[in-house]
C-alpha cells in the first residue's frame, strides 16, 4: 500500500473509482509513454550505430571535435539533478511543501545550467565551422563522415535538450501548483510522474555522453 489511498484527494477525476486506481493508472500511462520514448531515441541511436559501424575511424576522429571537459561537467550536473529530483519526490510524498518546492527549483536550476553549457558548446561549434550544412568548413580527411557525425551529434543532443526544456517547463508548473497547496501526502502523482520523466531524460544522456564524447579517446 502507498499513501495515495489514505489521504483525501481533491483532484479525483470522475472516470476513476478511487484514488488508488487513479494513481495506478497514471503510473502505467507514464511508463507506456516512456516506452514510446525508448523507441523514439532508439531510432536515432540505431542510425548512429549504423554509421558508427560503417565509419568507425572517422567517427572516433570526429568525436575529438567535442569538448570532453564540458561533456563531463554536464554529465555531473545532470546526475546531480536526478538526485535533487529524487529529494523533491520524497518531500512531496511526505507533504512537506517548502522542501518540495526547494528541491524542484534546485532541479530546474541544474537543468538550466546544463542547457547553458550546451548552448555554449553549440555556439562554439558554430564559430569553429562545425555546424553541418552550409556553415560546415572542416576540410580534413573524411570530411563527409565528420559532418555526418556532427549532424547526429546535433540531432541527438538537440532532441535531448528539447526534452530538458519541456521537463523544466513542467517543473516550473509543479512549483507553481505546489505553492498553491495542490499536492499533499495523499496526492502527489504529478511530481512522481515528472520524476520518472526526468530520470529517463538523464538516462538518455548517460548513453549519449560515451557515444558522442568518449569513443575517440583511448
Amino acid at each position, binding site marked *: 500500500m502507498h499513501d495515495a489511498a489514505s489521504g483525501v484527494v481533491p483532484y479525483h477525476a470522475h472516470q476513476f473509482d478511487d484514488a488508488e486506481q487513479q494513481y495506478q493508472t497514471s503510473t*502505467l500511462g507514464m511508463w507506456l509513454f516512456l516506452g514510446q520514448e525508448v523507441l523514439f531515441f532508439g531510432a536515432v541511436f540505431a542510425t548512429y550505430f549504423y554509421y558508427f559501424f560503417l565509419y568507425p575511424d572517422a567517427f572516433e576522429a570526429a568525436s575529438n571535435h567535442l569538448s570532453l571537459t564540458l561533456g563531463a561537467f554536464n554529465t555531473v550536473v545532470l546526475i546531480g539533478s536526478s538526485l535533487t529530483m529524487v529529494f523533491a519526490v520524497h518531500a512531496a510524498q511526505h507533504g512537506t511543501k517548502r522542501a518540495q518546492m526547494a528541491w524542484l527549483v534546485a532541479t530546474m536550476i541544474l537543468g538550466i545550467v546544463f542547457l547553458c553549457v550546451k548552448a555554449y558548446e553549440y555556439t562554439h561549434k558554430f564559430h569553429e565551422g562545425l555546424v553541418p550544412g552550409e556553415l560546415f568548413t572542416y576540410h580534413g580527411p573524411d570530411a563527409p563522415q565528420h559532418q555526418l557525425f556532427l549532424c547526429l551529434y546535433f540531432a541527438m543532443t538537440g532532441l535531448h535538450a528539447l526534452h530538458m526544456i519541456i521537463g523544466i517547463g513542467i517543473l516550473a508548473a509543479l512549483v507553481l501548483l505546489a505553492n498553491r497547496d495542490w499536492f499533499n501526502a495523499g496526492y502527489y502523482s504529478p511530481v512522481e510522474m515528472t520524476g520518472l520523466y526526468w530520470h529517463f531524460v538523464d538516462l538518455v544522456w548517460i548513453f549519449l555522453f560515451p557515444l558522442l564524447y568518449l569513443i575517440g579517446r583511448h
Partner: protein
Amino acid sequence: MTETVVHEAHDASVNYLNADYGVRSWLFTKDHKRIGLLYLASITVFFALGGLAALMIRLDLLTPAGDLVRDDTYNKLFTMHGVVMIFLFLIPSIPAVIGNFVLPLMIGARDLAFPRLNLASWYIFNIGALFAAWALLAGGIDTGWTFYTPYSTMSSNSNVLSGAFGAFITGFASILTGVNFIATIHRMRAPGLTWNRLPLFVWAMYATSIIFILGTPVIAITLLLMMIERAFHIGLFDPALGGDPILFQHLFWFYSHPAVYIMILPSMGVISEIITCFSRNRIFGYSFIAASSIAIALIGFLVWGHHMFVSGQSANASLIFSLLSFFVAIPSAIKVFNWTATLYRGSVRLQAPMVYALGFIGLFTIGGLTGLFLSTLATDVHLHDTYFVVAHFHYIMVGGALMGYLGAIHFWWPKMTGRLYNETLAKIAAIIVFVGFNLTFFPQFVLGFLGMPRRYHVYPDEFQVLNVFSTAGASILGIGYLLPVLYLIWSMRYGPKAEANHWGAVGLEWQTSSPPPTENFDHTPVVTSEPYDYREPVEVKKVA
C-alpha cells in the same frame, strides 16, 4: 471541481448528445464518445479528399496516353491519395472513431483513462493533418507516400517538408491514443471482466496500441532525419555525401510494415464482434483469436525487409525476412479459420454489418494470400513495384480494413446516434461496395502479373481493357461509399429511434441506453459470464 453531480443519467431522455449544446461543448469536450464523433467528422473529410485523388487517378488511367493530367500532376495525385488515405484516414479510422467510442463502453468504464489527452490527440491530429493537407493541395508532393530518399531530400521540388512535418505531428496523436487505450484496458475494466472475458475488439485495440507505442516514434525520427537532410543538405541518407538510402528504407518500413497491421487489426476485432452477433454463436477459439492479435502485433515488427527485396539489402537478410513473412501470415489465417468455424451451425442473419463482415473475410483472404506471393523472394523480383502489389494491399486495406470500418459504423451506429438507418439501403450499399471493389482491383492483379508497373500513368495499349474495367469498378465503388454518407446523415434526423440493444448483442455497450448517458452507465456493470454467450434463446427473440 467538486463532486455532487446530479444523477441525470436516470432520466433516459438525457444522453451524451443532448446533455450540452453549442460548439464549445464539443470543442472542449472530454467525453470519449464526443471525441469519437469529432474524429469521425475529421477523417470523413479526409476520406473524401483521398477519394477525389483516387478518382482523378482512375480517370487518367482510362487511356494509355494518360490524357487527363500531366506527368508531375499524376505523381502528386498518387502521393496525395496515399498520404491522405494512410496517415489521415486509415490509421486513425477504427481506433480513433470506433475504439474511442465503444472501448470504454465495452469494458464498463466511465471514460478512457486520460480524457484530456484524448481531446489533445484530436487537436494534434488536426494540426498535423492541416500541414499535410496544405502541402498536398498548395503545390503538392511528388515522392509517393513512402518519401524515399535521396529523391525526397535532394531532387524533389515539391512541398516535402511541410507534408512530412504533418505526418510527423499526426504520429503523436496515435501515440497518445495508444497510451490511453492500454492504460484504460489494464486498469479500468468493470468488476468480473477478466482478461479472458474481454471482447475480442478490445484485444485488437490492445494489439494495435502496442504498435502505436512501439512503431510510431520510429517513423517520427525517420521523418525528422529526412527533413534535416532536406533542409540542410546533409548526407544522412544521400550516398553522394556518405549516407545510405537503404537505412532510410529500413527505418521507414520498420514502422510502416507494422503500420499496415495498425490498419487491419482493428478491423479484425470488429469482425469478431459482428460475426458472433449475427450468427448467434459463441466465438470459435476465443483464446486463439485474442493471442493471434498480439502475435501479429509482435511478429509484425520482424518482417519489414520484405519491402526491400530488390533494394540492395543483403541476400541473407532477404531470406530471413521472407521466412518471417510467412510466419506472420499464420496468425491471420488462424483468425480466418476461426471466424469461418463460428459461422458453422450458427443462425446467420444477413443484416448490413454482417454483409460487410462476410465481404471482409473473403477479400482479406485474397489480400493475405497474395501477400505470400510477394513474400516469396523469387516471385517478388517479378511482382515488385507492379500493379500486383497495388492490388494486394488494396485487397487488405480497402477490402479488409475499410470494409471492417464500414461494418463497424453500421453495427454501432444505433448506439452512437440512437437512430436506425434504412436496412435495405444499407444492404444494397454493402453489395455495391463489394462488387465495385472487386471490379476495381481484381484486374490490377492481372495487370501487375503482366508487368504493368505502379506509379506510371502512361502504359502500352494492350493494358487498356483491364484498366477500363478497373476505372468502371472504381465508379461503382464511389457510389457504394456515397450512399452510406447520405442515408446515415439522413437517419440522424429522420431515422426511427433505436432501442438500447438493437441487435440483441451481448456486449456491455448494449446494456446502456442508445445513445448512452455521458457517464456511460447508471451503475457500473458486473460481468459474470464469458463473452459472446449467445446461447440463450431469449436474446434471439428480442430481435426477431
